[in-house]
């Protein structure tokens, strides 16, 4: 090897390493909240601007889901709040300072930036006019006897967090029995008068929009919720340039800036990426180039079909044999039917949550959940189809001298094909609808638009997911009708037409 070629090879090698170093992969996550999504977009844009290949797995779900994803390495970084870290994630109230928090995180291979600036703590709020009329200024006022009848409506998370209602009730001796409702719907409840008081985040855009008064936390109950970027330790090693850029966000976003971004997103319906880019341009003087997005409808459709298709195919492979066994061994069949029946009654959220304990966020947990929900209709239709074959025809196959296997494949399954196909069709149509919940675990599909629409109270956005889902359900139904002549033998169709 000559010196020239050797140096060329070295240069190529160095270039290769440099290229690998130049474009580290940074996977950004965010919780299913508008603010968290905007921050997730901001981190993603920033990482991309500094040479990383960045992905944003937006709106993955609640705190536990996203933190789990970070712990397992499904994502590298996401925005979190110090109060949540103390009370919910680490569940250690003795962690008073940020340094103590950092030490606790370090033992888990995690780290956090310094606060980004704003404090998005919990607050209780009610319409200004009502607050004036009732003379409510602080949370202690709520404890007064004359306000015991007020209707409190809180988000699921607030109701269950130790730093939420359970602790608040004790700290202020509040006599109320709140009801649970979605955070986004709470504002509608306030406006409609169906509830009087709800929990808020202090940077919520609605506070201004709905003219709400925040009750003073006069006992200093709520912990501070300073936003930080929680990240895996190795991010600083793998992508030092990105890490350095993220540090620039420290102290850069105050309450009013965050509240304004929330308002743009939620009230003015500006895209989260745009909101984040505008902020980076104005505050950090960065020239952000927004990537052209692929057609979101087409991408969502492809993803939705993937979720439904894979789960359905797997379910057919498992459920049809289960149906056959149920038919051949009725006692076993009772057990099988009971089991798939129970599976069907499990709440989808619970199934998804369980799946997340051993599957990474993304399509996998959703596909497994959809698979389980597809079993019952297919097992049942297979069993019914086989049972409904007239007895004299089953006997005809026996006396002919066909083996049990040949009877199954040449007589029984073809004769049950119409029923089996109808079960598969039912499962497919239900799956198209159920797959929308997949976006809770980052599976994508039409559910993304629906869930974002619910968070934003943006009916057109909800429809952008709901209408294609409904259309797809119809297409699937129609597709199966077209498929029927190819699968159900002609003779059966003739016989049915006659009957």
């Amino acid at each position, binding site marked *: 090897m000559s010196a020239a070629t050797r140096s060329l090879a070295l240069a190529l090698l160095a270039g290769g390493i440099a290229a690998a170093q130049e474009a580290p992969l940074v996977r950004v996550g965010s919780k299913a909240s508008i603010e968290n999504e905007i921050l997730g977009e901001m981190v993603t844009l920033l990482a991309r601007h500094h040479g990383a290949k960045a992905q944003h797995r937006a709106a993955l779900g609640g705190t536990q889901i996203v933190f789990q994803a970070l712990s397992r390495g499904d994502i590298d970084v996401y925005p979190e709040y110090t109060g949540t870290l103390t009370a919910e994630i680490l569940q250690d109230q003795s962690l008073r300072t940020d340094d103590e928090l950092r030490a606790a995180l370090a033992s888990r291979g995690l780290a956090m930036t310094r606060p980004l600036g704003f404090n998005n703590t919990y607050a209780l709020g009610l319409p200004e006019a009502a607050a004036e009329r009732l003379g409510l200024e602080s949370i202690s006022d709520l404890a007064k006897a004359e306000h015991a009848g007020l209707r409190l409506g809180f988000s699921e998370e607030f109701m269950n967090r130790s730093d939420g209602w359970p602790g608040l009730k004790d700290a202020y001796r509040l006599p109320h029995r709140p009801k649970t409702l979605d955070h986004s719907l709470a504002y509608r409840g306030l406006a409609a008068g169906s509830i009087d008081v709800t929990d808020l985040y202090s940077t919520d855009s609605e506070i201004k929009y709905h003219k709400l008064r925040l009750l003073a936390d006069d006992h200093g109950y709520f912990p501070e919720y300073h936003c930080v970027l929680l990240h895996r330790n190795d991010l600083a090693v793998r992508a030092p340039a990105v890490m350095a850029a993220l540090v620039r966000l420290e102290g850069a976003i105050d309450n009013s800036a965050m509240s304004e971004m929330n308002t743009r997103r939620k009230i003015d319906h500006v895209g989260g990426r745009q909101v984040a880019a505008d902020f980076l341009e104005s505050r950090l003087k960065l020239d952000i180039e927004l990537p052209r997005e692929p057609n979101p409808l087409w991408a969502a459709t492809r993803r939705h079909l993937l979720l439904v298709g894979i789960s359905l195919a797997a379910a057919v492979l498992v459920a049809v044999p289960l149906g056959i066994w149920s038919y051949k061994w009725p006692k076993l069949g009772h057990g099988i039917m009971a089991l798939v029946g129970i599976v069907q009654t499990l709440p989808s959220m619970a199934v998804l949550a369980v799946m997340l304990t051993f599957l990474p966020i993304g399509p996998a947990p959703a596909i497994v959940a959809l698979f389980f929900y597809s079993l019952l209709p297919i097992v049942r239709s297979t069993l019914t189809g086989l049972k409904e074959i007239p007895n004299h*025809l089953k006997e005809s*196959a026996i*006396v002919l001298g066909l083996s049990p296997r040949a009877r199954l494949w*040449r007589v029984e399954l073809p004769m049950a094909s119409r029923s089996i196909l109808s079960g598969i069709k039912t499962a497919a149509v239900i799956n198209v609808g159920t797959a929308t919940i997949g976006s809770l675990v980052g599976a994508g599909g039409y559910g993304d638009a629906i869930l974002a629409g619910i968070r934003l109270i943006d009916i057109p956005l909800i429809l952008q997911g709901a209408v294609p889902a409904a259309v797809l359900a119809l297409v699937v139904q129609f597709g199966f009708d077209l498929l029927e002549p190819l699968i159900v033998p*002609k*003779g059966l169709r003739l*016989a049915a037409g006659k009957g």
Partner: protein
Amino acid sequence: MLELIDVAKSFGGTQVLQPTTLRFERGKTTVLIGPSGCGKSTLLRIIIGLVEPDQGQVVFDGQKLTPANIMLMRRKIGYVIQDGGLFPHLSAIDNVGLLARHLGWSKLEVQKQAEKLAELTRLPHEALAKYPAQLSGGQRQRLGIMRALMLDPAVILLDEPMGALDPLVRYDLQEDLRKIFQSLGKTVVMVTHDMGEAGFFGDRVLLLGGGRIVQDGTLDELIAAPADDFVRRFISAQRLPGLNGKEVPA
């Protein structure tokens, strides 16, 4: 060649077949006749292994029928039921050739044998490509018979084969069937409740009542010398040509 030795069966405490020993003659047609519930169908179903007897055994070709060998034995026995028992999802020829194809016959072999049998049973050639739902009752029954004859079995069992046919179709089919059975020299066991049919087919007629064989002979013997009052009443209840409901002489 086909024998029942001390075979008995009861369902839910009712003895539907008393202990019965019976030998079917090679090349002869034996008709089992009797009122509903007399045990004639049960007897046929025991032979083909659809019903397992409580006691006794069926011997075919010198071999005792067991759960282990019953599938292979069935392939040597043709079985015909009412309306043919055709599978609706298969075309006529696929119905007829189902077992043969399963046993490895080529399509061509099946086609040739089916055409031969169609000739024999006088089934219109074009009916072979149709589905059961597109055929008449008589055609379906002819196909049922073709399917039973496909592997050229030595024994044919028929369980009320004409039950679903109207009189004219039935008349033609009876004529054809008798010719076929005689020309092929098959051992035939047929169940019917029609005395005329029994006389038409049967070299030997077995009259069953209450789960046992009450009389065993030719139809002429049964009419001329009924074994008991039950036989007399059963024969009298049939509108036999030439008898016209007149009392059968005691």
